[in-house]
């Protein structure tokens, strides 16, 4: 691996950290271009999970025996790694959840319970279903209104519209930092400042951002930030909710159960302090330990180096794909990550996906859990190649050749 100080990544060395990259799919060398669905896991993450499960398995926050205390220490060390990674003020503001979706649902239920009929929530037209449906459900439960910021033809947010939508009834702006379908990097600092100038808190869906751009919750001054471990090279089934303490303290617990209480009697139960208040039940201990190892890995490679390697892939891919006749990019924002959403004339994305798969190339074909966004662009689905820092230009060449082959087959 290359040290964080050097900007140029030694990709061939890095690829050795991900054994899956040396495997085959359908008899061809695997070309993994589905990183927006889930990122691959480096050996160090798998080894950390394995070490815990094989040699350290124990529950946390309960036992007085050696293993339990060791597991608790490892678990809490991961929380500190997450805190430091997003620069939260304190560990208590880091809540482990089951994923981005679970984090948003937690906020929609708990923060949402403080809201009343007539209040408004603002989301955008490029949200993943996980940042649409929990708010729709809240609106139905409590008579709130959902407002939607439109998206322009390049796949960028209409910030003027956002400014017009914010009013005295607005209680939250819940917005995606990086679009999973388009790759658009939204101007999150600008959005947060705008919302704060109206005393409106902001929830950032950072699922797609966390592995690609540095996120500093204090510099951003964001109120809630959610992401998934598995899109940051860690295990699935785990996510993080960062919340500003003042907000988390005001919010009631979401799930009730063990670990989130101070004392329980049938007459009255009192709740634990943060973060335990929002972490009912035995957590995903192995996953949390794996996430800690994933953050160590990212820190070692360096997010700046990752971002710059991906930027190079973005520009190369953009150039190569734009030369393919009959290919239309969906998502051409000025600021974007290395996600390429595209459609081909007269060829359905599912056919593209299956035919690329036969070449060993893994992409996603579908609506990417963003049906309103697909409607916005007038397509039922797109094909999406999403790259990470361990991808190479030669893999982009393979993608281009395979697309040309698909076009010849359908000609």
């Amino acid at each position: 691996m290359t040290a964080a100080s050097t900007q140029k990544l030694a990709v061939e060395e890095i690829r050795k950290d991900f054994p899956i990259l040396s495997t085959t799919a359908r008899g061809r060398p695997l070309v993994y271009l589905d990183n927006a669905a889930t990122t691959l896991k480096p050996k160090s993450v798998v080894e950390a999970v394995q070490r815990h499960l094989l040699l350290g398995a124990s529950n946390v926050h309960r036992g007085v025996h050696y293993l339990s205390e060791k597991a608790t220490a490892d678990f809490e060390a991961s929380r500190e790694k997450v805190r430091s990674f997003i620069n939260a003020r304190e560990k208590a503001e880091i809540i482990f959840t089951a994923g981005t979706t679970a984090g948003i649902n937690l906020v929609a239920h708990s923060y949402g319970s403080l809201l009343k009929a007539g209040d408004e929530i603002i989301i955008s037209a490029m949200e993943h279903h996980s940042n649409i449906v929990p708010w729709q459900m809240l609106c139905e439960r409590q008579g709130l209104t959902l407002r939607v910021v439109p998206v322009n033809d390049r796949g960028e947010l209409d910030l003027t519209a956002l400014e017009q939508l914010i009013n005295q009834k607005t209680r939250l702006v819940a917005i995606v930092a990086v679009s999973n379908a388009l790759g658009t990097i939204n101007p999150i600092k600008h959005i947060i400042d705008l919302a704060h100038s109206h005393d409106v808190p902001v929830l950032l869906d950072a699922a797609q951002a966390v592995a690609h751009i540095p996120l500093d919750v204090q510099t951003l001054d964001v109120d809630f930030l959610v992401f998934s471990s598995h899109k940051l090279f860690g295990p699935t089934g785990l996510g993080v909710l960062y919340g500003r303490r003042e907000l988390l303290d005001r919010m009631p617990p979401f799930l009730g159960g063990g670990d989130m209480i101070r004392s329980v009697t049938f007459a009255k139960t009192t709740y634990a302090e943060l973060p335990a208040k929002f972490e009912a039940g035995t957590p995903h201990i192995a996953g949390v330990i794996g996430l800690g190892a994933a953050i160590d890995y990212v820190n070692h490679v360096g997010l700046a180096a990752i971002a710059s390697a991906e930027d190079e892939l973005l520009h190369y891919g953009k150039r190569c794909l734009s030369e393919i006749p009959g290919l239309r990019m969906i998502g051409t924002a000025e600021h974007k990550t290395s996600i390429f959403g595209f459609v081909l004339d007269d060829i359905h994305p599912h056919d593209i996906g299956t035919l690329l798969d036969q070449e060993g190339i893994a992409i996603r074909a579908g609506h990417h859990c963003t049906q309103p966004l697909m409607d916005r662009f007038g397509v039922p689905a797109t094909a999406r190649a999403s790259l990470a820092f361990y991808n190479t230009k030669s893999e982009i060449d393979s993608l281009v050749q395979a697309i040309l082959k698909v076009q010849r087959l359908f000609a």
Partner: protein
Amino acid sequence: MTSQVDLYQQVILDHNKKPRNFKKLESHTHAAEGFNPLCGDHLWVYLQIAKSPDGADVIHEAAFEGSGCAICKASASMMTMALKGQSPGTAKTLFSEFQSLLKGELNPDTEAHSLGKLKIFSGIWQYPARVKCAALAWHALNGALSNQQTVSTE
């Protein structure tokens, strides 16, 4: 393309490009809409069923319209060809045989069937994500025969 099963054989590509009976059948007696919400495949299947001289019901015309992937369109196109001149009962048999074929439960080379050219879809069971594409028109057919107007394969 090399693979264990070639999904995109010329016949399928040809039916995708030039789908047969691709129209709205104004004179239909039965029709149903099929929709895969997850992938957006969306089509309508029309049947014109009338009595033959011997008094039995016969599918005189079968047609479809809509949009979908190549597998979905080719399956629909070939289905309409297979249905013409058949009785509704035979159509139902074809439907269940085709379902078995898609699930990999019917080996068209060793077991008896009436699928004819439709056996080209054998092997699709190796691509579980695509089975519903091939099945959509058939579920719409089944819906039309059962007087059910909308079907979904999700």
